[in-house]
């Protein structure tokens, strides 16, 4: 059957004139002798003819080209129309692909964000150095930090960092470009108030100095105007205050109780020592990075070895060449500048979860909502430090005592701190009183109280007060003499002022006809 079909296929091809001449001849020979093949050939020819004759050709399409031309233009326009959507379609497709990709790889985005964050963190962590590495963190600064929660960022420009607590107990810090500076000499007032002797004073200095190194590691700055604050700083604030209060109570309980009512501070010495030890032992490398671009927390480990090496080198150099060392130290110093560049933080909300930031022209306050301060059971120092602060305010910073005298040789001018053990200075000043008397201005009355010690608050003598700052506590003979000369000049000026004042007072006295027992300036 298969063979027969093959023969018929050949016949069909023969009908279509598709056989080669040889094949055709061969087949024709076979057809001559086969009735079956002849019949099949006729059948195939008939079917072919039926097919050819029955299928009519289509009539021509006269407008085919016109229609095609229109279609070609339309297709072009369609393509143009489509082309303008290509970017949108592209972005949509890309977004869809991204969405699908992120759906199945949710960690990728987080990784990217973390990478970006670590890039930013890396940038702002470069060249971080302790703020107080090169600047002077004096005992006075540490004392003020303990009781006023303030640390100087830039003494020249009056910028400082202040720690605080919100009413709900959460911590905040603020950076002020300017503001009320600390009243000077708080430490000495503290010492004077407690009537500490020299040995005790040295102990206070030693306590404060013991925190200097630790505080250095709590605040870091760099040349990118970054300030990194270790949250343990809040603990240090309380620990230093507790340490000082504990010492003060032990040193002179009677005087201490005048400042802080008995029972306010319940912690005994061993307890305070434990607290201090705990705070100092906290190795928390998480810093709050406050930058012109953002605020974030990140772990950071300063290379203390390298930094100490730099310091040691600077000290060594200082021994050899003081002038150059000072210059080098100045170069090492990095000041933090809170300037207008921080205003962009207002528009940044990326850190909203952890921080709340309030910024105005000279203040930036950062509320730390979700940052954990290392947990140490600390005493509530706020009430106590407020008492101490108040006590400091009520103490005049400097007492000047002027003995009266009418021996024609002038008056003796003496000033001393309330601490009776500290040095005092006696200065000869002109006998202003006798001069005034000789001028007949006051009659028998004296500017200064006759024969008795009169206490002046030198705050009213602003110019005098300026000269008598705490630097005079450390008596350097040469410098002191120089200052005394300046003081004399100042007193000359004061005398001129007195003269003018006398005239005014005299006018008043003429009007009122009243006598004056004493005059307080």
């Amino acid at each position: 059957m298969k063979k027969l079909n093959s023969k018929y296929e050949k016949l069909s091809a023969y009908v279509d004139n598709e056989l080669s001449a040889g094949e055709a001849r061969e087949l024709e020979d076979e057809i001559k002798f086969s009735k079956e093949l002849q019949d099949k050939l006729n059948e195939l020819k008939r079917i072919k003819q039926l097919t050819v004759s029955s299928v009519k050709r289509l009539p021509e399409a006269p407008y085919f080209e016109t229609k095609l031309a229109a279609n070609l233009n339309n297709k072009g326009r369609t393509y143009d129309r489509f082309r303008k959507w290509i970017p949108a379609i592209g972005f949509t497709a890309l977004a869809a692909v991204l969405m699908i990709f992120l759906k199945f790889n949710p960690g990728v985005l987080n990784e990217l964000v973390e990478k970006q964050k670590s890039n930013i963190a890396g940038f702002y962590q470069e060249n971080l150095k302790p703020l107080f590495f090169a600047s002077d963190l004096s005992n006075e600064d540490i004392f003020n930090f303990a009781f006023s929660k303030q640390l100087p960022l830039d003494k020249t420009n009056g910028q400082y960092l202040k720690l605080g607590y919100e009413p709900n107990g959460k911590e905040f810090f603020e950076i002020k470009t300017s503001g009320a500076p600390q009243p000077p000499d708080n430490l000495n007032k503290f010492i004077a108030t407690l009537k500490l002797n020299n040995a005790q004073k040295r102990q206070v200095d030693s306590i404060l100095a013991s925190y200097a190194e630790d505080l250095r590691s709590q605040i870091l700055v760099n040349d990118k105007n970054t300030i990194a604050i270790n949250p343990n700083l809040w603990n240090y604030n309380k620990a230093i205050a507790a340490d000082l209060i504990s010492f003060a109570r032990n040193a002179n309980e009677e005087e201490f109780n005048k400042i802080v009512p008995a029972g306010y501070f319940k912690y005994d010495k061993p307890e305070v020592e434990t607290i201090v030890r705990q705070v100092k032992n906290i190795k928390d490398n998480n810093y709050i990075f406050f930058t012109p671009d953002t605020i974030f927390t990140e772990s950071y480990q300063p290379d203390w070895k390298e930094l100490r090496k730099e310091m040691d080198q600077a000290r060594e150099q200082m021994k050899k060449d003081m002038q150059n060392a000072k210059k080098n130290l100045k170069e090492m110093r990095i000041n933090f500048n809170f300037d207008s560049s921080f205003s962009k933080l207002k528009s940044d909300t990326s850190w909203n979860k952890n921080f709340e930031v309030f910024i105005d022209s000279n203040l930036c306050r950062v509320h730390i909502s979700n940052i954990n301060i290392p947990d140490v059971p600390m005493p509530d120092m706020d009430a106590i430090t407020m008492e101490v602060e108040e006590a400091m305010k009520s103490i005049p910073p400097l007492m000047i005592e002027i003995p009266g005298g009418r021996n024609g040789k002038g008056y003796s001018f003496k000033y001393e701190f309330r601490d009776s053990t500290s040095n005092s200075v006696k200065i000869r000043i002109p006998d202003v009183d006798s001069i005034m008397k000789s001028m007949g201005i006051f009659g028998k009355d004296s500017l200064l109280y006759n024969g008795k010690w009169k206490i002046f608050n030198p705050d009213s003598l602003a110019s005098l007060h300026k000269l008598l700052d705490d630097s005079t506590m450390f008596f350097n003979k040469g410098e002191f003499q120089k200052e005394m000369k300046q003081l004399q000049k100042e007193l000359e000026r004061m005398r001129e002022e007195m003269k003018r004042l006398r005239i005014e007072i005299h006018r008043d006295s003429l009007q009122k006809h009243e006598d004056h027992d004493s005059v307080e300036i």
Partner: protein
Amino acid sequence: MNTKNTEKDLQNAQILNLDEDFSLIKRFIDGDESVFAVLVQRHKEKVRNIIYLTMSSSNMVDDVAQDVFLTVYRNLNNFRFESQFTTWLYRITVNKCKDHMRKIKIRNIFTPINDAENKADETANPEGSDISGIVQRAIARLPEKLRVPLLLKDIEGMSYQEISETIECEIGTVKSRIFRAREGLKNILKPFEEELMS
């Protein structure tokens, strides 16, 4: 002698055609798009007839033909001159017919039964009830793979070689399919033997 001359003339005409098509395409590739109209003019009727024969319906012929020439227009720059233009053109035509028929089949799946039946009737009875009508309906009932080579041969007069290139199969397959188409047609037309004899 006369027959031989005629065959020679045909071959010469084909070579001439081939050369003409190639030169027109070259001009098109060189940027003269106006020659495309000439190519369309020369081949549109053949294309339309192949579509008509392949799809067994005149309804869609012009739409499919337009589609064919749009495809040619978009791809003519990529023509590689390795085969005749007509071979390439007819292959596109047959493929477009297959695409359209596939689309119609899919569309019919989603068409209500009554509409689909009406359409099937229209296709089954395209040209009336005379002999040619009977034959056309019989041809339409052939499977596509048999119908197309048969019509390309009998109506369009293509050689087996051309058919094999157009429908992309072997010459032997073309030969076999044409024979089977004729056998199928004979069987379909058996009930109409009397009408056909008269």
